[in-house]
């Protein structure tokens, strides 16, 4: 599934928080430059995965409609790019996160 298909499904927060949006560095740069256009207090900040891709939690989609916390930036993104964003389970994405060392 990709982001375009996920948006159409209109899933709930409880469902979305178990999904991850995964994309390449080019899309990450577009996301960051888009958010630099305005100075919002609320930022979609991707986390780098060990395979070089980047990830956001899909629950951000609960805030993309009018007056949503991330609606301003989302509205400026080119919708054609959404098909390039892969949707995977958060469990799968978590396995691709860098592992923190225990510090005792």
């Amino acid at each position, binding site marked *: 599934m990709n982001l375009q298909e996920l948006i159409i499904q209109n899933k709930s927060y409880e469902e979305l928080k178990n999904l991850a949006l995964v994309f390449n560095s080019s899309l990450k740069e577009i996301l960051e430059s888009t958010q630099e256009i305005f100075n919002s207090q609320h930022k979609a900040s991707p986390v780098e995965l060990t395979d070089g891709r980047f*990830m956001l939690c899909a629950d951000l989609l*609960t805030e993309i409609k009018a007056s949503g*916390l991330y609606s301003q930036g989302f509205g400026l993104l080119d919708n054609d790019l959404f098909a390039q964003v892969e949707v995977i389970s*958060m469990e799968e994405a978590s396995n691709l996160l860098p592992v923190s060392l225990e510090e005792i």
Partner: protein
Amino acid sequence: MGHIKIFGKTKIEGKTGFYQPPPYDSTAAAYIAAVEAADGQALESSIKIAYNDFIVGCKSDGIWSALKASCILAGARTLSGALVPLVGTTPINNNFVSADYNRRTGLKGNTTTKYINPRRAINADPQNSHHYGVYVTEAPNLTTTRGFIGNAPSTGVNNFINAVTFNNTLGLNNRNAASNLPNQGLTTGYKGTTRSASNSWSVRTGNTNFNYTSASSTPNSSAFGVFARGTGTFADARMSFYSIGENLNLALLDTRVSNLMTAINAAI
């Protein structure tokens, strides 16, 4: 003329039936106005009184001026309201959504992406006069290290509070001096650390102070994270307060924050 608090309002004695808002402290009034503007709606009187009592209490305790970056992550009607700074610069919300926020219990993190950037550097406060702390209302899922606040830069001096799986330990670093408190990683309530001198620092957790004499190291300019250490090692805890600043009496702050959370819970 005397004033009596009745259901969050003030009755002026001798004027039966006439009510007026309580006279809020000027700092509290400004904070309340900013929260209401961010919420787009007025707060209940009981919440405003809780905020006012907290600020007035901190001033009375002599700890208010030590707070340099802080948010009350409860009471406000919206996440935007909760992120109005009590003190300091407006923080940056990274990836939190409205559904993560609960007016009574605070903001819920996750283990993968969510953190607040309070926009305060680790070295913004003096090396030997600083504090940072959080109020935890729901413990993290402790399957690996979970950062509550601070930073652990790849090079440089550590300043953080986190929970680690080994013995459910609360692990702290204060200017590179370490403390490990078994069985405190999954407890709720106030958790903080303060340093009052080059070789004197304290931790507060579980309503208890732990005092240490280890020396400080010079911090760098790396940024604090909240619900994380910097921008990683995220915590899926729920938290309702954080503060960063100069040295202060942790027990007094703990009492004020605990009373604030009790008042907010009673008000909603």
